[in-house]
């Protein structure tokens, strides 16, 4: 009898391990605890480069992008926003409307509207933006220029040709 009851849950589909802690922490966490309570992927992001995918080349687009893996090259999202997740490492010059850094960016960041560095974020390079928010614990090595408009980057649509040996990702396409 006992064995039967014990074995019952094993047959039931388990909650994915990645979701369970998120839900649990969401209950326990205070009002705002982004690192713990938010899902690993922004719900707003229409494109996602996850941890297991490595991109080398140029990424262009006009929608939002979430990067949680290694990216090397150039990122130009024009009017989209780039979120670098805690596992994301971007070695690239970044142009976007908004840049949120929870991982690491090595390169120049041009955030037209704003740049946010979370406590886990690390930036090695220049930041040029209208508004900058830095959470305690973030690491920044480089020059900061705020308060004046970032130079206008050309909006080349959602898909452009990348380098011959590189990958081109159009924001809006989930990989």
């Amino acid at each position, binding site marked *: 009898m006992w064995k039967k009851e014990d074995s019952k849950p094993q047959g039931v589909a388990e909650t994915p391990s990645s979701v369970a802690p998120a839900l649990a922490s969401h209950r326990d966490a205070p009002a*705002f605890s982004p690192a713990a309570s938010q899902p690993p992927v922004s719900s707003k992001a229409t494109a996602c480069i996850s941890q297991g995918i490595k991109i080398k080349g140029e990424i262009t687009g006009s929608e939002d992008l979430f990067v949680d893996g290694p990216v090397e090259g150039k990122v130009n999202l024009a009017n989209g926003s780039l979120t670098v997740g805690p596992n994301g490492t971007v070695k690239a010059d970044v142009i976007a409307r908004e840049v949120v850094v929870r991982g690491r960016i090595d390169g120049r960041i041009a955030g037209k509207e*704003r740049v946010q560095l979370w406590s886990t974020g690390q930036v090695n390079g220049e930041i040029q933006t*209208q508004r900058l928010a*830095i*959470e*305690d614990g973030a690491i920044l090595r480089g*020059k*900061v220029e705020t308060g004046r408009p970032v130079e206008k980057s050309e909006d080349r649509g959602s898909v452009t040709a990348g380098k011959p040996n590189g990958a081109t990702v159009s924001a809006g396409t989930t990989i």
Partner: protein
Amino acid sequence: MTLLNKFGIGPASSGGRGVTHPGKPGAHDAAGTKTPSHGHGTAMPAAVGTTRAPAVGVESTRVSNGLKELMWNLDGLGRGTLLDMGGAWQATLSFFIEKGFRVTTDDLLRSWKQFLDNEEKEYRERSKSDQSLDLSPGGRASRFFESNIQYPNSSFDVVLLWDLLDYVDPAMATRTVAAITELLRPGGVIFTMFHSKKPEGFQRYRVADAGTLQVVSAQVICPAQRVYQNREIQDLFGRYRTAKSFIARDQLRENLFIK
């Protein structure tokens, strides 16, 4: 509603020139007592998460006559350039950017620690027959500056060095001062602090206002190395034409050196 609020990243009531305040330094209340600011109650964006407890806690605020003097020296400089070697703090960045400065941050101690760790790893990986790495303090410091703190000469008007020299070995301290001297423009100012007693922990400092610093306890990156005597400090900055010292009650000596 300010424009910053409109974008969801601004403080409840303040303008600002582009840098939003995660925790507007709440130094003094009406009674003149000092209360630490933890960023609670500010209208910082939920997205940035500054309404939660900060990663490090503000322990106290302290009056800084050195900072007052520094600001007096910088009055009228206009759009100057500043290098903050104590890490990136929103409050400090906001303060100087609002004063018109172009700010660069480069965490000296963190970079130094990372460099030492890498060197140690490299040394271990080398074969016993090939251990030609110069591990003398001077050699290490020279190698550090070959790949770190790389800025054009005479590119800064102000360098905030805080108390970091207390946490590096004397050879590195000497080399750091030499490197910063090259980075400073003639007439440029270094703001630095030295402990009168060997500090047990490690603290970071951020600017609350023109005469107040917030003291933030932080994880020890490198242990304190030595306590400098006044004479030794003067020798360290011997190339500077003006030196001003301020002795505080909290075992800290604040110094301004003008190139």
